[in-house]
């Protein structure tokens, strides 16, 4: 039963989601040119630099592009809104628009959005997977 005792209560769906309070995204920022990346890096795609610092990404931004997905792999609930958000500190992020109906009346280009987290599912140890999306803000 020790396994259950050591199981984390929650885990982020991706490493670049930091579940601190408040939750936010983190990025590897190139020390030479400032380009930001969400994956682990070998070198910078923008300038070739090899030195990075971890930075917090702004949780507020603008909806720059979206699509309302009606056909997806069988296990994925549809419709949902996939979006590209440009954060206020200039980082592009892809995720779903959440907590709002999936239609063009409620989802509009240029609208303000803010990062929000939610529980996706739970594994056999009771660890909750936490994902992030963006919801309309003012």
């Amino acid at each position, binding site marked *: 039963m020790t396994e259950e005792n050591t199981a984390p209560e929650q885990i982020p769906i991706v490493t670049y989601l930091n579940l601190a309070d408040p939750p936010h995204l983190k990025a590897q920022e190139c020390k030479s040119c400032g380009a930001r990346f969400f994956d682990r890096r070998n070198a910078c795609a923008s300038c070739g630099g090899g030195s990075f610092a971890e930075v917090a990404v702004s949780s507020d931004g603008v909806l720059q592009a979206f699509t309302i997905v009606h*056909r*997806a792999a069988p296990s*994925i609930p549809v419709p*949902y809104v996939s979006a*590209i958000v440009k954060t206020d500190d200039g980082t592009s992020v892809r995720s*779903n628009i959440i907590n709002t109906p999936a239609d063009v009346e409620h989802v509009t280009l240029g609208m303000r959005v803010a990062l929000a987290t939610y529980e996706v599912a739970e594994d056999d140890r009771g660890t909750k997977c936490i994902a992030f999306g963006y919801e309309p803000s003012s």
Partner: protein
Amino acid sequence: MNSDLWILGTHMTPFRRQPDLDVVDLASQAALGAMKDGEVGIADMDILACGSLFQASAGLGQQLQDQIGQTGIPVYNVSNACATGATALRTVIMSIKAGESEMGLAVGVEQMGKMGLLAGASRRSDENVYEPSGRYGSVMSVDGILGTNTMPGVFAQAGMKYAYENDGVDFEQFAKVAQKNHAHSTMNPLAQYQKEFSLEEVMQSPMTSYPNTLLMCCPTGDGAAAAVVVSGERLRSLSTEQQKRAVKISASVLTSDPYVEDGQVQPDVNTLTRNASTAAYEAAGIGPEDLDLVELHDCFATAELIHYDNLQLCESGGAGDFIDSGAPYRNGSMPVNVSGGLISKGHPIGATGIANVYEVATHLRGEAGDRQIPDAKVGLTHVIGLGSSCGVHILEAAAV
């Protein structure tokens, strides 16, 4: 080094589901057809490049040789996303340009059957303990949670980004692209679909990924296309009839993505296309206004609209007005995808980047029958594969 290069022969199979043939049969039909069209044979070939996305690892070029002639020439098996066919063609072009070959055969082929929606991953259902894995440390498939990985969705977002940057671009303008290409395909007997739909039917067909409806998405299918490329020097040793039908390759360009800030979350299909077209116009010594027809990569209707801008066929930001003006229709000032495009002609991935060369060459030769663009002298072909890779070729009719 050879300075001028020509398409001597070209052929494409019908695009459709062809379950009774295998991928080697399809490649053989295209290869034999192209050599027959150029009045040459396998013994004349100094190089073979065979492009296929899903079957390239199977040594398809060698399997093709086994069917049409094993002459011991170098074979390159090429795979480069949706630019695979153009890359095979360019492989032959580079070899001739370098002076290693005088004549070569490029083949593009794909047998996809009913693959359905590409690149959308199912969620794993057998995992019981979350462990971070991969470059992003994900604990499950993120498709559908952190946005979409499906092709209709990715290209929908590319179109919507253009709409965000250019006020007034809307759903109806995207839909017009598909209405046009379906209408064009009714004149192409090799097209997978040859049925016209009204704009309303396009807009009201089942939504795949807004704003792309089902009729705004290319189908999967089977098919092949091939081209024989020859140096100018060798061409001039051939018959007058062969020389008359030869089509000049005025530019052959391949680009990949330069870094852009949002490239890690949304493939940038714009910058590399713009770069490729700029380089191609410069190499050919012409401008977009000199083109008589264009075959561009309309994998989805949203893609075609933004490529009007990327290929500089319209004013910057003016792609919506361009389709509204009627310019890209076959009777317009800049006919685009008179073959029916990927949306209706079909998109067997490896074949596409040579099938577009077949289409343009056929018009430049004045052999396109009912769908002939009158007096076509110069044409451009464009393909883009996500990842990304972009191929642009400019072709010119022989001056006779």
